[in-house]
């Protein structure tokens, strides 16, 4: 019964996480030009700042980059075309998230692989501990006769 309750709690937790992810990731069906340009600017690194996006930076260069983004979106260019313009000038360094293709793809693969590796390691360790526990359990190791003798000796001592 208690085990079922545990599984139920984990199920609820996963469901809540999934709902939160969907709500957080939800985008309006028709984002405004300002929303679109902010979304593109948020994906670009400010070239004169330390780890700041073009959307968040107050530098003049970032402001001019935002102006170009807005202008190009208004002209009908896609976010990918605008990002490609900056990548052609600054390289993929300008993208805050590394591209998933090529060598940079390792950056995307590494976290899930490390997570999987961690879970695997944990599983192996838990199984190993359980097996050791069984091996060192006197009853499981066939030490019942020995324990019986110890008990008898103890009883004799007490008497």
């Amino acid at each position, binding site marked *: 019964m208690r085990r079922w309750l545990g599984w139920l709690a984990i199920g609820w937790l996963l469901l809540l996480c999934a709902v939160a992810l969907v709500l957080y990731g939800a985008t309006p069906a028709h984002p405004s030009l300002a929303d679109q340009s902010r979304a593109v600017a948020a994906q670009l690194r400010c*070239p*004169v700042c330390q780890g700041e996006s073009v959307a968040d930076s107050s530098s*003049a*260069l970032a402001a*001019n980059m935002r102006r*170009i983004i807005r202008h190009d979106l208004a002209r009908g260019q896609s976010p990918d075309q605008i990002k490609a313009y900056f*990548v052609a*000038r*600054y390289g993929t360094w300008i993208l805050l998230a590394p591209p998933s293709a090529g060598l940079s793809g390792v950056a995307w693969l590494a976290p899930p692989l490390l997570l999987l590796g961690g879970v695997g390691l944990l599983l192996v360790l838990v199984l190993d501990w359980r097996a050791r526990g069984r091996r060192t359990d006197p009853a499981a190791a066939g030490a019942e006769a020995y324990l019986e003798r110890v008990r008898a000796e103890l009883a004799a001592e007490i008497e």
Partner: protein
Amino acid sequence: MRRALWALVVAVPLIVLLALGFRHDPNAIASPLINKPAPAFVLHSLDGRTVSLHQFRGRPVVLNFWASWCVTCIAEHPYLAQAWRSYGARVAFVGVDYQDNLSDARHFLQRRGGGWPALRDPGQQTALNYGVGKIPETYFIDASGVVRYKEAGMVDPHILDTQINRLLGGRR
């Protein structure tokens, strides 16, 4: 023994990765424009002339992004002036004033000299077209209009001579 082996298996690749990472300068970003046509521009100089990159076709161009407020630009200016005098008409020197005040830029040139065109860059469009980040940055463009080298940071006589001689095909 097995534990030591595992520690080695984990530690050695980590140390190798860190060693490689620390050897790499995170600010040294290779320009994707190298060996590509230099982005064209038509800009106005501080004294009101119209200057385009195209008008220098047939001559190597040293394109320097600078500003009067940039301390490193003050340090490299004498080297640029020296190279400009030394190479004469064989090489075109062009300065693009980056995010600067017009009177400050004029005062800078009056005080420090420099007879090559100094261009204004409204909206930093040309700087963005060249992928300029932190100035000074200098682009070495060959006679056919192809970017051959980018120096992010200060140029010195050695860099200027090496790159200009490359553009001139070894002729000094």
